[in-house]
């Protein structure tokens, strides 16, 4: 049995605290943890808090203010269309130099009921909706290969755009693609599923990491962290989560006290520190653009 890595779950109020406190950001950035889930209450079924912020913009500003911290952005595929979400995820992948990923789970407790983007009136489960969004986001993020950006001064060709593909995803959500952003050079972003009894993970190639019920990462509440005996599933990790109402300082204290008993992880992209291989790109798909020609003068 190997020693697990450490990761943190920040809820809305803790994230708001972090954003307002430069010293806390430095302390958080120095933790030897694998990643932090930003906005965990949006995916773990624990209910709305008194304050929250959108995790993707929070992650983007934190990417500019940190050098080591890695994060999974809590997302919900109901009011957020997969095309918009995939753009933010891929953009974060570039701007954080691969330190970011996305996590799905239970219903977002802040969002009013309604699925404005789904293509069917037939009932579907939350898990089915997540699986479909994961598929769409992954396909979109891979629709524009980074290596097609050549910048050839001789021919005037900036991108070998004939290598860019439509995704033509037609499931619970529909999107043609391609994305407006190339795949990050570190590969498609890490995708995670926070599994609960209500929303168990559906196995699929597009899910890199399952946290919670049956997953490789076990959830440990901060007030039980002291008593934690050191057991974990093989190769997995711990997600340290405060109880509702606990402060950021309490969470960071608990993380620092656990750090000596967990497996330290070094710097680098999230995919690399979790030892996840870069997902291969599907070979199919309509070419989005014709073969570029050297340009002619007007």
């Amino acid at each position, binding site marked *: 049995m190997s020693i697990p890595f450490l990761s943190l779950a920040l809820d809305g109020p803790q994230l708001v605290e972090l954003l307002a406190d430069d010293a806390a950001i430095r302390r958080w950035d120095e933790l030897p943890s694998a990643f932090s889930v930003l906005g965990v209450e949006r995916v773990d079924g624990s209910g709305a808090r008194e304050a929250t912020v*959108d995790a993707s913009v929070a992650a983007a500003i934190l990417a500019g203010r940190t050098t080591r911290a890695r994060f999974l952005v809590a997302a919900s595929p109901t009011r957020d269309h997969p095309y918009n979400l995939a753009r933010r995820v891929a953009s974060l992948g570039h701007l954080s130099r691969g330190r970011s990923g996305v996590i799905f789970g239970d219903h977002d407790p802040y969002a009013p009921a309604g699925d404005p983007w789904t293509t069917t009136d037939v009932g579907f489960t939350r898990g089915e909706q997540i699986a479909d969004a994961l598929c769409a986001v992954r396909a979109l993020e891979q629709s524009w290969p980074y290596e097609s950006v050549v910048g050839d001064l001789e021919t005037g060709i900036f991108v070998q755009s004939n290598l860019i593909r439509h995704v033509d995803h037609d499931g619970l959500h529909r999107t043609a693609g391609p994305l407006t952003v190339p795949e990050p050079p570190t590969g498609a972003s890490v995708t995670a599923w926070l599994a609960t009894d209500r929303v168990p993970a559906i196995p699929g190639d597009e899910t890199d990491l399952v946290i919670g019920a049956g997953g490789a990462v076990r959830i440990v509440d901060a007030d039980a962290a002291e008593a934690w005996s050191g057991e974990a599933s093989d190769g997995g990790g711990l997600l340290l989560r405060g109880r509702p109402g606990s402060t950021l300082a309490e969470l960071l204290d608990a993380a620092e006290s656990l750090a000596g008993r967990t497996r330290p992880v070094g710097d680098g992209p999230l995919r690399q520190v979790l030892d996840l291989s870069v997902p291969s790109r599907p070979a199919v798909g309509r070419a989005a653009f014709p073969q570029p020609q050297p340009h002619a003068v007007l």
Partner: protein
Amino acid sequence: MTERRSGHVILGINALVLGYLPASWQSPELTPGSFVDPAYWENIGRTAERGTLDAVFLADIPALGDPAHDANPAHMEPTVNWSYVAGVTDRLGVVATASTTFNDPFDLAERWLSFDHVTRGRAAWNIVTSRGAAPARNFGFGDVPPRDDRYDRAAEFVDVVRALWDSAVTGDRVHHRGEYFEIDGRLSVPPFADSAPVLFQAGGSAKGRELAARVADGVFAAELTRDQAVEHYRQVKRRAVEHGRSPDSVKIVPGLLTTIGSTEEEARRRNDDLHDRGPASYSIEWLSQSMGIDAGKLDLDAPFPEEVLAAPDDLQTFTGSVGFRESIVAQIRRTNPTVREYLKQTRYTGSGHAGFVGTPEQLADRIEDWFHAGAVDGFNLQPDVLVDGLQVIVDEVVPILRKRGLYRHEYETDTLRGHFEAAAASAPLW
């Protein structure tokens, strides 16, 4: 004779990723991956802040145009792009564009209030309705709704977003039952200083201007001639007054494409060189998109046929930009050039947005002239190549404007709303 105004102009930079000219990626200061490189964006943000500029803009459309010869279609998502830049700056405003056709109002309201929270009051939403089939297909639609529908949806969308932003201050739930949306909820995002993001409106159709007059704090206008700009300036602000608003509360900030050199001749050479290194089809495609025609079918050596210049029969299904089309037609009617002459002339005068090619001194003159003429409250400058064009604006144009008392020496305010409130009062409207 125009009346002199006191106070300072608003200066924004419309980033257009690497610059407005397709050949901008060929700059020796860039690598092929600069457009998605955090170091590139950090440099842009820090340079703009060194110039005490009011804001940086990103236009956006949620679909990819062919990036074969041009980085301009390759957009990262604007709130993420600018939040990152806000992370490495302190005072610079950040304006992100998003479409009311391809978003959900609750989702957008929550994201933009968060964007304003994390940037500490520096965020703005540039409201667009988006056109074209490509974005529609990315969201599961066959095509976009006709124009009036889009603007009706936009008006309701914006009202829902503003009500939700209010809900974050008051804690009261929003119960909205409208033609396009049903929303029951409230936001739990802490509003920065009990305020909300600045609202920009871009687009020159009648309904677009009406939306601007009713709710916008800023208008990102497209103006080719000073006289037309004065007319639109007065039109929007007078309408704002009719809505019970102060004319100072809506700032008119048109785009201005810039190529700057140490002499006028050097600037023209730079502009010609950048055009020659870009694809020839670029200007033809641009004209086609803006005017809703296939410009490739026009005889390059004949004047524009009257049927191309005449107003489109049906604005509902017109695929171009009403604002851009109007300014382009006005420009063509003044000199009646051949298509080829027009395409070459627009290198120096701009097309859709006005163009400027000249020295820093001349650019300062242009800004000063339009400001005192009551045509603008400031400009959204669009450098040909952003990485060095921005540097010249900051190091050479801004100091001239400061000497003339038209721009601040240091930031005096911390938020984008604060920057706007500190800018010059409105020009006379009558």
